[in-house]
């Protein structure tokens, strides 16, 4: 559609371009940028990956006569509840960063993003402690080994897949924090980053319930 034809239609003043052609903005998604829509599409596909893992976990567990074998340690609910609270706090710091970015407070955005990255780093430290032990014995030392049982394998697969998201999310936050400090990141970029980080929190809420609590 040409720019003239669009202007003649008189529906929208906002346009975006594909292959050099101007297209009208889509009234169904308002002023959402292509980057934001792209992130939502990525998050949906990622959510189905987690959905597949949780579904496999549920089927294996539902069809298993003995889920928790003798000699295998139980998962630490209290410690992981602390990690859950940590991720919730980091979601709050992220939403504060997004709100400040929308208001144009770049220095506050840097501070909130740095705190969010700290939350991510602490979560990863906690997960390392849970697996391998830092200040006390980890699950691997207590006899929970990948490949020994469905209980162990699904636990490590699901939590490490989530941990990989926390790791990449923390890197993503650090890069964006630097870009923001240099004045290169705009509010849209911070909002897209926020979507990813909140998704990581949302998935953990489900993993915590299905893998640790049930």
């Amino acid at each position, binding site marked *: 559609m040409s720019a003239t034809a669009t202007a003649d239609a008189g529906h929208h003043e906002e346009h975006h371009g594909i292959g050099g052609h101007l297209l009208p903005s889509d*009234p*169904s*998604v*308002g*002023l*959402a*940028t292509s980057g*934001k*829509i792209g992130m*939502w599409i990525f998050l*949906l596909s990622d*959510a*189905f990956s987690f*959905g597949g893992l*949780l*579904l496999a976990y*549920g*089927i*294996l*567990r*539902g*069809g*298993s*006569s003995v889920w928790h074998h003798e000699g295998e340690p139980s998962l630490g*609910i*209290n410690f992981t*509840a602390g990690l*859950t*609270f940590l991720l*919730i*706090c980091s*979601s*709050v710091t*992220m*939403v*504060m960063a997004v*709100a400040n*970015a*929308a*208001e*144009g407070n770049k220095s506050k955005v840097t501070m909130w993003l740095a705190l969010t990255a700290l939350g991510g780093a602490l979560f990863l430290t906690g997960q390392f402690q849970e697996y391998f032990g830092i200040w006390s014995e980890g699950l691997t030392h207590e006899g929970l080994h990948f490949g020994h049982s469905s209980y162990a394998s699904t636990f490590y697969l699901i939590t490490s897949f989530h941990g990989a998201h926390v790791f990449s999310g923390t890197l993503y936050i650090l890069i964006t924090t630097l870009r923001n400090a240099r004045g290169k990141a*705009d*509010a*849209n970029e*911070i*909002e897209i980053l*926020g*979507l990813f980080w*909140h*998704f990581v*929190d*949302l998935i953990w*809420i*489900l993993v*915590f*319930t*299905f893998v*640790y*609590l*049930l």
Partner: protein
Amino acid sequence: MSTDAPTSAPTEHATHSRRPYMVIFGLLFAFTILEVAVALPSMGVARGFKVSALIILALTKAAMVALWFMHLKSEFKVLRWSVLLPFAFPALYAVVLISEAAWRLLS
């Protein structure tokens, strides 16, 4: 929100209220404590009630994060439903397949 109402442009410098975020944070914190309390074996909660309560609490918490923190609540209806609706199908598959696996085990 109707499809006629525009979302805020990310570059607009409008002041955003922090109160809803703090309320959601408080609820997420309270629900997490409640989950742990329900899940602890020492509480002696019946298995059926425990499973139902934990699933409802987890889905409520996830919905709060998606609607308020990810701002789906204030997005256009088409975008909101494009994100939320696809989750109905995996949930349905989960109920059918896990029930079937459990039924085979019991029978």
